[in-house]
Structure formats: structure tokens, C-alpha cells
């Protein structure tokens, strides 16, 4: 006997449940997660090196987990700050999932950590779909990548709580049009804050740290339009009437 069964389950239900648990567990111990997304070479590691160093200087307990397909180079760089750092090798996987994190955090993440930075795999496509239990999702783009980057990767930029422009020290040399970049971000994610940084010159130092600490202390975090879709299925016209009820044939 053949039956059509109405399941109505989110494909990412398992990841989202893991992320929710992780967020609650970490919140209970006073830790917030900052998830950093960008394409390879945008300067996530350089920015994070500065922010971790600054946090240590200010006496804020921070830690960082960095993910790559191969090498421990980023962990080595970040560890120079003195903060606890862990390298996650994804063995070829293009993104992190919430379920992968628990095993890495257990027994490693110091209890007193207030901010855990996660440097995601350099990729603006796949990591965008996976909630890692973060309080703040930060999407970075360097001035060399072009003003239309937000239009080319709308899911990543559309779900960001904060957008960071990196390498502004070479903005003039590469002819970066900041106004055009801002307009493109606004089109995809109206109202999101955009911060300009240069890890080399120190522009925007502490921007990430300040916003993450504010979020940890309960300051309102930007709500992207893309996260505000009602859960009711719409438009109804695309639904197959046979799938709405359990039918038998």
C-alpha cells in the first residue's frame, strides 16, 4: 500500500536543534559565540588576531576556534595573542555544522570564556546555511573583492548581524567604492551596521569586540529581513493539495 505522508520538517531541523542547545548551554555559562564568515583571503584571521590581542590587553576572557580544510597555520597565528585557540580540520568539508562543535568545545573551552570567536571555513556560500549557535554573525569582505560582493552572495550578507569591510588601507589603491558597497548591503540586508577596518593600520580596532560584548550583555542585535519570514507556508499555490493531508492509494 502506498501512502503520502505530510512530514513538514525543516531540512536543517537537526542542525538548528543542535545550535539552539549550544546557544543555551553557552549562554548559561555567560559565553556568546561570534561566527565569522567570508571568502578565502578576506582577512578574517588578521582581524581576529588584533581583536584577540586587544581583548587580552583589556582582560576580557576570549577564545577562538578556527576551521580550515587543511593546515594549522591560522591557529598558530591566532595563538600569538595568548588566547586559547583550537584548530578544527574539516577534512574537505566546506562548512562547519553545529553538531561538529560540541566535541571540540568539551574539555577545551575555558569555563570563564565570555566570547568564543569561530572563524568559519573561508567560503561565502555553504557556511551561510548553518546556525552555529552564534549570538553575532559577522560577514567580512575586503576592499579588493569588489563592491558587488553582497549582491553575488545574498544569503551570506542577508543573514549578517554585522558587516565588516577589511583592508581599508589599500581601498584607494584598488579603487574601492564604499558608497556603492554600502548601497548593495542595504538592498540585501536593510539596516545592518557596516564597520570599516584595517588590521594593518588599526582602523576599527575593537569594533568586533565592543559589539560582541554589547550583545553578550543583552543589547539588541540587528534582525535581518531574511530571518523574519513567517513560518506559515506561503504562497499556498505551490503546495500540492495531496501533500496537505495523509492520503492513501
Amino acid at each position: 500500500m502506498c501512502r503520502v505522508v505530510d512530514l513538514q520538517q525543516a531540512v536543517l531541523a537537526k542542525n538548528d536543534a543542535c545550535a539552539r542547545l549550544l546557544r543555551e548551554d553557552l549562554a548559561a555559562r555567560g559565553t556568546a559565540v561570534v561566527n565569522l564568515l567570508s571568502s578565502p583571503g578576506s582577512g578574517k584571521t588578521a582581524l581576529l588576531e588584533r581583536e584577540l590581542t586587544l581583548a587580552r590587553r583589556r582582560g576580557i576572557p576570549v577564545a577562538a576556534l578556527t576551521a580550515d580544510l587543511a593546515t594549522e597555520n591560522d591557529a598558530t597565528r591566532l595563538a600569538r595573542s595568548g588566547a586559547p585557540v583550537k584548530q578544527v580540520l574539516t577534512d574537505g568539508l566546506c562548512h562547519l555544522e553545529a553538531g561538529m562543535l560540541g566535541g571540540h568545545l568539551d574539555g577545551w573551552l575555558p569555563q570563564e570564556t565570555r566570547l568564543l570567536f569561530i572563524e568559519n571555513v573561508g567560503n561565502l556560500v555553504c557556511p551561510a546555511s548553518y546556525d552555529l549557535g552564534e549570538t553575532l554573525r559577522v560577514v567580512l569582505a575586503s576592499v579588493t573583492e569588489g563592491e558587488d560582493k553582497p549582491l553575488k552572495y545574498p544569503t551570506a550578507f542577508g543573514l549578517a548581524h554585522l558587516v565588516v569591510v577589511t583592508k581599508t588601507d589599500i581601498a584607494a589603491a584598488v579603487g574601492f567604492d564604499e558608497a556603492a558597497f554600502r548601497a548593495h548591503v542595504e538592498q540585501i540586508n536593510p539596516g545592518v551596521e557596516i564597520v570599516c577596518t584595517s588590521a594593518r593600520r588599526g582602523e576599527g580596532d575593537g569594533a568586533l569586540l565592543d559589539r560582541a560584548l554589547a550583545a553578550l550583555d543583552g543589547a539588541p542585535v540587528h534582525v535581518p529581513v531574511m530571518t523574519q519570514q513567517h513560518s506559515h507556508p506561503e504562497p499556498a499555490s505551490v503546495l500540492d493539495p495531496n501533500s496537505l493531508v495523509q492520503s492513501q492509494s
Partner: protein
Amino acid sequence: MHEMSLALAVVDQIDGAARFERATAVSSVRLQVGELAGVVPDALAFSFELACAETVLEGAELIIEQVAARARCRPCTRTWETGMPPRLTCPGCGGADTELLSGRELQIVSVSWHDAPRPQPTHQER
């Protein structure tokens, strides 16, 4: 390409539900994929076939319903198709207070499966 991870998640969820219901084979799976879900339907279909191998879903047909992204301006109530790349500020008043009506779906809608035949009651049992 994260479509393989998504396909494995779909197969994992349906395989669990099918085993629970003692279904013997899954003939088709219906998914909704929104325009703004960040998923390439063709890549998902390709991955799905591979992910089904040696499970109760082996050979199952994947039906993908693509859902257009639509948005609504809260102040002026105008609704519009966002297009791709999406425009999420109001094309009418230019406002930024937007509500997304559709486009982020990534949902298993329904599954068609075969149940193991149940023993028919005999006259005596009736």
C-alpha cells in the same frame, strides 16, 4: 557544495520516519526550496540520488517545488517579488521596514512510501 550535506540530512530524517512507520520503500520525496534558501536545486537533486543509495529511499524520486521570494513593506503595505539578487528595501517608498513573505523555505513537505502489507483479519477474527 553543501547540497550533499543537505541531501544526507533529508535522507536521514526520512529514513528515521520510514523505519518508525515500518515502511518498506520510499517512492518519492517532495521538498520546498525557496529562492533565498542558498541552495542549488540541481545540485541537491544530484546529491540526493547518491545519498539514497543503500537506504530505504534507494531509487526514490525527488520533487522540488521552487518558491519565489516575496516581500512586503510594513508601512506602505506594498508587496513585491524580490528577484535575485533580492531587493529587500521597498521599491515603492524606499523604506527598510520589510517583512519576508516567502523565499527562505528549505522544507521536507511530504513523502510517499510503501507500507509492509498488514495481515488481513479472517472471518473468525471479525
